[in-house]
């Protein structure tokens, strides 16, 4: 069974085998407001944990999406270029950003599980 974990920068990761699907959380899209542009990485790009993976621009601000794990980009959700609103409508599903071939699966364990992330978000208020 796949498991979803969360980063402090409000990304979610779903790990299936050694492939990680990455997006931003519902809380993140809520804080950003209407997303108007998504800049996705190129397939084949190697990213390091904590470094910039993508950029998301809303009516309020432009923000970086950081890679919660190190790996190589194997697929991106190119539909977001045409319909960035998907990030607002379904942040945890159809609004995913990219898939990574993970180089170090142990990094996944250091991310927050759902309960811990929920607590973390509550602490921000």
């Amino acid at each position, binding site marked *: 069974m796949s498991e979803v974990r969360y980063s402090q920068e409000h990304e979610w990761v779903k790990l299936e085998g050694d492939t990680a699907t990455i997006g931003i959380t519902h809380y993140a899209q809520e804080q950003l407001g*209407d997303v*108007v*542009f998504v800049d996705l990485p190129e397939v084949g790009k190697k990213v390091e944990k904590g470094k910039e993976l993508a950029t998301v621009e809303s*009516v*309020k*601000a*432009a923000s970086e999406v950081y890679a919660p794990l190190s790996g190589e980009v194997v697929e991106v959700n190119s539909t977001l270029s045409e319909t*960035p609103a998907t990030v607002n409508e379904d942040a945890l599903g159809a609004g995913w950003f990219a898939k990574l071939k993970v180089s170090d699966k142990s990094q996944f364990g250091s991310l927050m599980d759902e309960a811990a992330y929920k607590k973390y978000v509550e602490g921000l208020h």
Partner: protein
Amino acid sequence: MSTPTQFQAAPMQGERRVRTISGNKGLQIEEPLIFEQGMKGRSGVDLPAVPQHKDRLGALKRKGEIGLPGLSEPQVVRHYTKLSQKNYAIDMGVYPLGSCTMKHNPRLNEKMARLPGIGDLHPMQPISTVQGALELIDQLAHWLKTLTNMPAVAMSPAAGAHGELCGIMTIRAALLARGDARKRILVPESAHGTNPATAAACGYEVDPVPADDRGRVDLAAFKAKLGPDVAGTMITNPNTCGLFENDIIDIADAIHGVGGYFYCDGANFNAIVGRVRPGDLGIDAMHINLHKTFSTPHGGGGPGSGPVVLSAALAPYAPVPYVVHGPNGFALVERGEQAFGRLKGFHGQMGMFVRALAYMMSHGSDGLRQASGDAVLNANYILAGLKDEMTPAFPGTCMHEALFNDEFLEGTDVTTLDFAKAMIDEGYHPMTMYFPLVVHGALLMEPTETESRDGLDRYVEVVKGLAKRAKAGDAAYFKGAPYHTPRRRLDETLAARQPVLRWKPEAPKKAAE
């Protein structure tokens, strides 16, 4: 919500709805695009017929119509006059756009810039005929260096971000000259967006530094990020939260300790002129927005200008050209041995130099010192007037701008954006919103020194009234605002997702490009 082409009268509760036949509302007159007006063949000038000639354009010849509307002179004059009347301007009222410093542009500056001996100059004139202009640049440079206690200044940058580019390119040139290419630049999370953009444009990796609970750079986090690969840091002081970075000398010592340089974003220099000299704080480079600190026009009113003062370590790498005293009077140095290059054609924004110097000379040193003091006093007056109804982002007094978060709106369903729209109806330009990003739902207000006490009292009364209205549960009112503008709430999301960048005729003409 109205569509862009639909005109709506503003139905107000308890008020009789009065619709005009034309759709106009008194002086608020509907105005179509200039391309939607006019008539083919109509013209404001009587042009002679094109004489017989041999066409040598060949394949370059235009194939379709040029597509300009046919208009008479009064039509054109009325069109642009009506558009200008839909504008809000600093000449109309308070313009509290925080971080932008929208201060009054004294008319004396304009008079000086229009003197024929200045206004009619051409940059290609022989140097011997523009000695006065060069002296003026030299004098302005002298006062910028004096006010900052810095030994050198690059005058050519055309605006703040251009000044940042100048500063970071100078730093890079200095590092490369000592064979020390470095990788990272530390930038606080509250920085103007242009800071990380500049660092990235110059090939550096941007390393964000968090803010602490006091809205200042987290000194411990800053020091933890230092290392031999750090080229420098870019810090705004006073920062974008309207607060003075108290640890600035420690920051300067720390960055110098690892061999890096200290770039200061001088966008908020207007708060400390005549009181703090950046050179005394250990700063290596800082741009000065003449259009903020020295009252030259700003935001569509005229070009910006962003001279960069430099420390002795960076001065040799400053861009050309610069003014020097030569054996035959003033001269322009067009080639410097170590200069990193040239940023701009000619010497910079001459018209802004004239205005800035006029401002300095008409104020004098005591006047400049009073202006920065009054700017800070006015911002604190607003902070004090609003702090009970709204929620200041940080405790204590502020510098030149007052920053609030949206906590006071919690549970009201009114957002910072809704609040700003309601301010438009009250006849005020909204404050800066959602910036700095480190403050939730930020509302950033900068009145500048040019607002009078009674003007500020009225402003505070209105904003306080809006805050009370929001808290009283009248969210629907805010969601519908603005009511009294030529257009109601615009769909900013749609405009960003599917921008219409160019007018196109309804019935397609043939290749009207």
